[in-house]
């Protein structure tokens, strides 16, 4: 998610065009994060809308101490967690994830195809984790929140977060290895190496 500071400041100053542009540039990332946390498209769409209602209320208080993307991710996390607390009926996650597209595709078509293939398999495996494990894994490993931040967002102790996190990684590594018919190093190694080599932001 690339957002110019000038655009954020214009939106903070009341520029409606800037606010709309902010929504257009960021809503896919917000929706994706929400989808990973709540586990189904309908709830994710509701969460996405609620996120921007909260953004409008809170944007004036954003001081640029963190990046806008980080701030927006925290807002999304909080709204999604509040939504899950209100939700009484649990909806099966299996098969609910929609196909993902690469926002920053690799220039080489074969590399891009490989990245998309791996991403879809990983997304499916992550989506299949138990809800509590999926949420800590997504927040910690995908979005880079600290263990303490995840604990606060989820109302858990840091120790409980680590237990869920380690179990999620164990399960994911085992399942990723199983789907490839062997150890999970293969494509995981290649993708990570290429990302680093090309200087792309992870």
């Amino acid at each position, binding site marked *: 998610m690339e957002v110019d500071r000038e655009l954020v400041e214009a939106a903070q100053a009341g520029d*409606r065009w800037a606010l709309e542009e902010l929504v257009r540039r960021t809503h896919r990332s917000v929706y994706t994060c929400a989808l990973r946390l709540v586990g189904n498209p309908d709830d994710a769409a509701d969460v996405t809308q609620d996120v921007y*209602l909260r953004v409008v209320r809170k944007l004036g208080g954003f001081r640029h101490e963190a990046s806008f993307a980080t701030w927006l991710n925290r807002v999304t996390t909080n709204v999604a967690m509040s939504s899950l607390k209100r939700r009484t009926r649990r909806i099966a996650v299996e098969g609910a994830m929609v196909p993902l597209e690469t926002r920053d595709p690799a220039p080489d078509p074969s590399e891009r195809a490989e990245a998309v293939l791996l991403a879809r398999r990983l997304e499916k495996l992550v989506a299949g984790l138990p809800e509590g494990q999926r949420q800590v894994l997504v927040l910690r*490993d995908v979005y880079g929140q600290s263990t303490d931040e995840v604990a606060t967002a989820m109302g858990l102790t840091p120790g409980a977060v680590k237990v869920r*996190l*380690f179990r999620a990684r164990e399960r994911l590594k085992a399942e990723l290895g199983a789907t490839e018919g062997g150890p*999970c190093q293969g494509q995981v*190694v290649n993708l990570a190496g290429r990302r680093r080599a090309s200087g792309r*932001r*992870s």
Partner: protein
Amino acid sequence: MMGCHDIRQLLPARLEELTPLEARARALHVAGCARCAAEAASYSRLVQTLATMANLEATPPDGTVERILVAIGRRRVRATDPRVMVAAGAGGALVATVMVARALRQRRRVPAAAAPGRARAALPSVVSAGQTAVLARLK
């Protein structure tokens, strides 16, 4: 020194998720155990790959942006921006004035003998003095 069974429970952790004591024990063990070293490397690569998922995006349902913009617009008009409320009110008054003026013109096209005084009677009673002045300029 801790054995493989104990160390394996620490392998899924990132370094910063371990206590200094755990981190040291893991490092010492992994340095001398190829199997645990391979496991640790495998977890490290898994975490690196998970981080790349932040660059992937799902496609929201059609109309998501429009729904968000409508929601934001309603919220701003209702609660956060008095200028928008004033603008919305002024805009509404202008639209009402123009509509009344058009209705008035249509009435005036009717022959006066067929409907004497009908145009004036068609004016709503809520038209203000200011709006009447605007109407006078439009005539």
